[in-house]
């Protein structure tokens, strides 16, 4: 807790104690004010009586103090009282203190969305693989708990846009979307009216599919090269993905982990007549070749 907030907290406790002691008087308070306002609204508080006094408005994380003349009005300008919550309005002066309760509600107009999109990267073709959750805030960062319709839109260059409309509950709304069959960066947008928030979801190729290699002689070695490596949706598996070549001969074997480069993986290994050569990537097996030369 910072020094300022500790001080405000102590002040609030003192004033609340004061107000509690004057509860009977507060019931017949001469203060006139709305029982509820929207955060950031301008409003006035009408006092009764005479003489100089001090008006306190004490609430969550905020205290406002005004010098007032009895019978006059205190004007609270727009944006001054901006934290939603329950407040106490206390008038002190020559006579007994007067107290009133004031409720500050979030502004009706959404101004900001906190949008959590998970994951930021996932394989193509996953049903309900993308989750989006939205929290709706007003211009003063108060959570708007009133129901609001939120539009979720997932768009990719090659696929039709997916849309969902979800009504917020207690300020939050969430949905699930499918990843498409094509790799690329999809835009995931949450929208309420003109307020939007966008995230990028990277859809990446899945496991290699139908991994195939060919072998050809290269001097005393055998040159092994895969066909362009693609996933089951036809997306090119990205460069850097490891492909493992294993050559078994007699009671021995040789192994090389080779990253894909320009779409294929290639390596030269010692040529052993009768060797059985296999290829794999991760847990996916490819074809086998028996090298007879």
């Amino acid at each position, binding site marked *: 807790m910072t020094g300022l907030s500790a001080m405000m907290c102590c002040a609030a406790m003192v004033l609340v104690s004061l107000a509690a002691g004057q509860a009977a008087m507060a019931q017949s308070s001469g203060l006139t004010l709305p029982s509820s306002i929207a955060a950031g609204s301008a409003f006035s508080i009408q006092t009764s009586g005479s003489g100089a006094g001090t008006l306190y408005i004490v609430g969550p994380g905020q205290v406002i103090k005004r010098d007032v003349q009895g019978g006059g009005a205190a004007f609270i300008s727009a944006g001054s009282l901006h934290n939603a919550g329950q407040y106490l309005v206390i008038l002190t002066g020559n006579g007994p203190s007067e107290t009133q309760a004031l409720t500050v509600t979030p502004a009706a107009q959404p101004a900001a969305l*906190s*949008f*959590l*999109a998970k*994951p*930021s*990267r996932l394989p193509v073709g996953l049903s309900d693989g993308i989750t989006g959750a939205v*929290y709706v805030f007003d211009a003063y960062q108060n959570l708007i708990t009133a129901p609001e319709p939120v539009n979720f839109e997932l768009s990719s260059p090659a696929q039709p846009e997916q849309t969902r409309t979800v009504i917020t509950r207690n300020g939050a709304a969430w949905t699930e979307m499918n990843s498409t069959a094509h790799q690329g960066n999809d835009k995931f947008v949450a929208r309420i009216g003109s307020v939007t928030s966008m*995230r*990028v979801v990277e859809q*990446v*190729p899945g*496991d*290699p599919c139908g991994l195939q290699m060919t072998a050809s002689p290269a001097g005393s070695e055998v040159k092994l090269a895969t066909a362009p490596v693609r996933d089951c949706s036809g997306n090119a*598996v*990205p*460069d*850097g*993905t*490891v*492909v493992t070549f294993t050559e078994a001969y007699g*009671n*021995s*074997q*040789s*192994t*090389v*982990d*080779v*990253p894909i*480069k320009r779409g294929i993986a290639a*390596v030269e*290994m*010692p040529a052993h007549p009768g060797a059985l050569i296999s290829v794999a*990537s*991760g*847990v996916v097996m490819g074809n086998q070749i028996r090298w007879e030369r």
Partner: protein
Amino acid sequence: MNKSGRLLAVILGAVTVALIVIGTLDPSSTALAYAGGQGLVPSSSTPELAVRDLAAEIGMREWGRAYGSLANKAEFTEQNFQNDLTGYYLSLRTYATLDHFQVRPLHATANDAEMRLVLYWSTVVGTSVSTRDLHVVRDGDHWDVDWPVAKKPDVPPQVIPVNYLRWDVIYPGAGDDWGEQNVEAPHVRIVDMHPVQRAEGVVILGELLNEDIVPAYVSVNATLLDKEQHPIASAGSFDKISHILLPKQVTPFFIIFPNAQLSDVKSIRMTPFSTLVPASADPVIAIDNEHLNPVPDPSLTGQVINQSGQVVNVAHVLGTFYDKSGQVVWVAGEYLDRALLPQTPEAFDIHIPEDLARDISSERTVVATYSERGEQ
């Protein structure tokens, strides 16, 4: 002081003087070496003492004195001799210290002998053992060692194009909004896990796959749970894993719970950990001539070949051993204490427990590498 006390003092004084005289006239070779002197009598009066003296000087890094004692020092320089022992390039051996050594006679005649010197080096990853068979020759009243120097491997001048991928990561800044997307951690999956009871405790063996398209720094933790699902113990794979995994790469892992009993364990909670790190697809390491050697000295031997153009300072060879059904039955590894030079084979020899050797029908080897440039 009474009479008996004076007598005791005289006796202690006489014994002390006698020990000093004995130690001066006939010091032990090791003590003499550590004291930095040559002694009053030559300590290399036998082949074994000559080798012990040499090993002690190596242990003290007294390269000049050790080199000066060699019979064949004209064949190489003192720097060659030192590099032969500490490595020509930065490696585990560079900062290793000699913990102890053993000398075993192999063959001896009146004028020459064959001795085996086993050096136990303390490195940052444990003990590294190197064995040298030495020829020792008589020179008058003392013996000198012919040191079988391994000269610097010659890599033929060549240009090796390095155009493999490298991944860099940009993380969100401190001032970004709450809820802003972070970079997704790599998706990894345990594809095999198998607990076994060994004499030293419970061992968990398995394999971990990076199923993402980005490189990952990985580790695995395991927690043993009893029948009430209460934790018994937790442990991690530490260095018995290849920590950097490129996309679709698989590493074995090995977690040991010393003194634990598998019969006390109801279930095991596995926690794989992954984080996105910058990495390079280079260097590519080929593993050649992998061979499973049967009992009585079961092992996996082979050679690793650095196919890239950069020097790999530390290589960790990890072997995964499977039974006929393809289940992992053991994981073992060996650090190579020499740097891997481009295109230069380096042998490895991974010991396999004798009682498991008969169950092993296949193996898979991976190499984790660490280079001075900091890439992997």
